[in-house]
C-alpha cells in the first residue's frame, strides 16, 4: 500500500515538475527559421555546405550563410529568403553542370566485354572501364542515377547531356562521376569543350571522332585568350570567356559546343541589329560589348559592326529600351 502510494506520489510530483519545467524553460524558436525552411527546395542536397535545408535555414537567419547560398533554389529562393529576412538579395547567377564528353560511347566499348553491374564506379575499378577512351564518359549513368533533379539526359550514343532547364548546379553529379569529367559553370557561358582526353591527337582520332586533338586552332581564334590547350586538351577559362563561339567555328573535330549558335537557323550566329527608332543613345550596349563592335556617340543612334560582332547577345539583354533584336532573315 505504501509502495503504491510512494510510487504514485513520486510519479505525480515528477510529472508535474516536468510539465511546469517545460512551460518555464520554453525556448522560443525564431519563427523566421521555419519560414525560410518552407521556401527552400527541401532536396537536402548539401550544395550550400550545410547538413541540410533545416540547418541552412538556421544559418541564414543567424546571418552565418549567404542569402543566395541555396544553389538549387537559385535567385527565386534567394529573393524569397530576402523577403522573409527583410534584406536585399545579392544576385546569384544560375550554375549548371557540363559533361566534358560527347563521344559515341556505344561504339567505343571495345577494350573488353564488361559484365559487371551497370555502374560507372564499378566499371572504373576494372582497368578503368571498357570504353576505348580512358578519359571519357563510361556510359553507365551513375550521374543520371545520382541527380536529385532528374536533369541528366541519356544521349542516343550512350553518353550523358545536362538538361540546363532542370539543372540547378548542386554538384551531386560531379561527385558521382569516377572519370571526373563533369564540371560546374555559369549557365550564361554558352560555349564548352566537350572532351576530356589528354591523349595526343593521333591517339584520340583512333578511338573517337569527336575528341580534342590539341590542334590549338581555337587558341588562335579566341579574341580574349580564354581557351588554352594544355596537355593536349583545350579548356575554356569561363571567367574570361565571352561566349563568342569563335573557337567552335574553327574546331576541326567539332568538339566545342556552341549552345548559342545552335539556336540560330542553320546553326550559325547572326549579329543582332539596333532599331534606330527605339535607340536613345544611352551607350549601355557599347559599354557591355565584349568585342567592341558597337559604335555611336552619347544620345545618338548606335550601330553594330557586323564584322566585329560575335553575336553573344549581351547587348540584346542589356538594352534598357529593347531596341536591339536578333536579325531575322
Amino acid at each position, binding site marked *: 500500500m505504501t509502495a503504491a502510494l510512494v*510510487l504514485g506520489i513520486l510519479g505525480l510530483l*515528477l510529472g508535474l515538475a*516536468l510539465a511546469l*519545467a*517545460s512551460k518555464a*524553460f*520554453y525556448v522560443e524558436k525564431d519563427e523566421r527559421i521555419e519560414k525560410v525552411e518552407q521556401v527552400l527546395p527541401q532536396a537536402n542536397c548539401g550544395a550550400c555546405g550545410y547538413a541540410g535545408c533545416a540547418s541552412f535555414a538556421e544559418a541564414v537567419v543567424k546571418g552565418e550563410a549567404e542569402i543566395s547560398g541555396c544553389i538549387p533554389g537559385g535567385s527565386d529562393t534567394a529573393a524569397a529568403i530576402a523577403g522573409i529576412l527583410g534584406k536585399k538579395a545579392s544576385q546569384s547567377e544560375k550554375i549548371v553542370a557540363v559533361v566534358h564528353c560527347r563521344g559515341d560511347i556505344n561504339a567505343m566499348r571495345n577494350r573488353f566485354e564488361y559484365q559487371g553491374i551497370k555502374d560507372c564506379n564499378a566499371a572504373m575499378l576494372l582497368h578503368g572501364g571498357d570504353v576505348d577512351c580512358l578519359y571519357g564518359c563510361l556510359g553507365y549513368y551513375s550521374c543520371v542515377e545520382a541527380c536529385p533533379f532528374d536533369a541528366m539526359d541519356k544521349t542516343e550514343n550512350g553518353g550523358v547531356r545536362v538538361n540546363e532547364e532542370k539543372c540547378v548546379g548542386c554538384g551531386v553529379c560531379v561527385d558521382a562521376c569516377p572519370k571526373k569529367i563533369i564540371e560546374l559553370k555559369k549557365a550564361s557561358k554558352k560555349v564548352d569543350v566537350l572532351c576530356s582526353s589528354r591523349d595526343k591527337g593521333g591517339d584520340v582520332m583512333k578511338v573517337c571522332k569527336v575528341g580534342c586533338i590539341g590542334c590549338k586552332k581555337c587558341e588562335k581564334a579566341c579574341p580574349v585568350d580564354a581557351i588554352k590547350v594544355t596537355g593536349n586538351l583545350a579548356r575554356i577559362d569561363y571567367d574570361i570567356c565571352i561566349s563568342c563561339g569563335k573557337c567552335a567555328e574553327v574546331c576541326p573535330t567539332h568538339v566545342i559546343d556552341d549552345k548559342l549558335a545552335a539556336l540560330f537557323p542553320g546553326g550559325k550566329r547572326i549579329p543582332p541589329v539596333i532599331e534606330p527608332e527605339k535607340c536613345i543613345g544611352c551607350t549601355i550596349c557599347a559599354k557591355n560589348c565584349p568585342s567592341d563592335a558597337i559604335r555611336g556617340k552619347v544620345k545618338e543612334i548606335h550601330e553594330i559592326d557586323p564584322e566585329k560582332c560575335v553575336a553573344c547577345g549581351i547587348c540584346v539583354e542589356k538594352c534598357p529600351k529593347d531596341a536591339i533584336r536578333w536579325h531575322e532573315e
Partner: protein
Amino acid sequence: MAIGSLFIIAISAIFINNFVLIKFLGICPFMGVSKKLDSALGMGGAVIFVMTIASAVTWTVQRYVLDKHGLQYLQTIVFIVVIASLVQFIEMFLQKSIPDLYKALGIFLPLITTNCAILGVTIMNITEKYSFIGAVVNGLSAGIGFTLALVMMAGIREKLDLADIPAALKGVPITFITASLMSLAFMGFSGMKIG
C-alpha cells in the same frame, strides 16, 4: 569525510572498478559512440554530467524517501523514474539557460537517460553505503572513468579504420577484441592497494 577516502573512491571508480572495462556496464554507448573522437568526448561529457547529478538526487531519494518508509525493494523502479525525469529536466534547463552546453552535449543527453551505467552507479552508491559527498564523488569519477575508456576506444578505432584487418573481423568483431584487450589491461589495476 576525509579527503583521503574521497580520493580512494575516485581512483577506485576511475581505474580499479572502471564501469565499462571492469564492471561491463554501459557497453552499448561504449560500442555505439566510440567511432569518432569528438562524439566520444561529447558522450563522455554528458555521462559525467548526468552521473554526478543523478548520484546526488538518488542518494537523497533513497535516504529520505525509501529508507524512511522501508521501501528499499522499490529502489530500481524509483531510481529509473527519477533519473529519466531528471535528465529530461536538465535538458530543458540547459536549452533555456546554457544553450552552449546544450549544443555540446546535444543528442547524447536523452540517449543516456536509461543507461545501465547511470543506474549502476546510483545503486552502487547505496550498496557501498557512501555518504552524500562520497556518492557525488563516486558518480563524478565513474563518469570520468567511462569517458576515459570511451575516448581511448575512439582513438584506437580511428586508427583501426586505417589498418588492414581480415574481412571476417572488420567492424564490430575487432572492436570487441580490442575492448577485451583493454579490459585485460585494466584488470591490472585491481591488484593495487590504496590506503
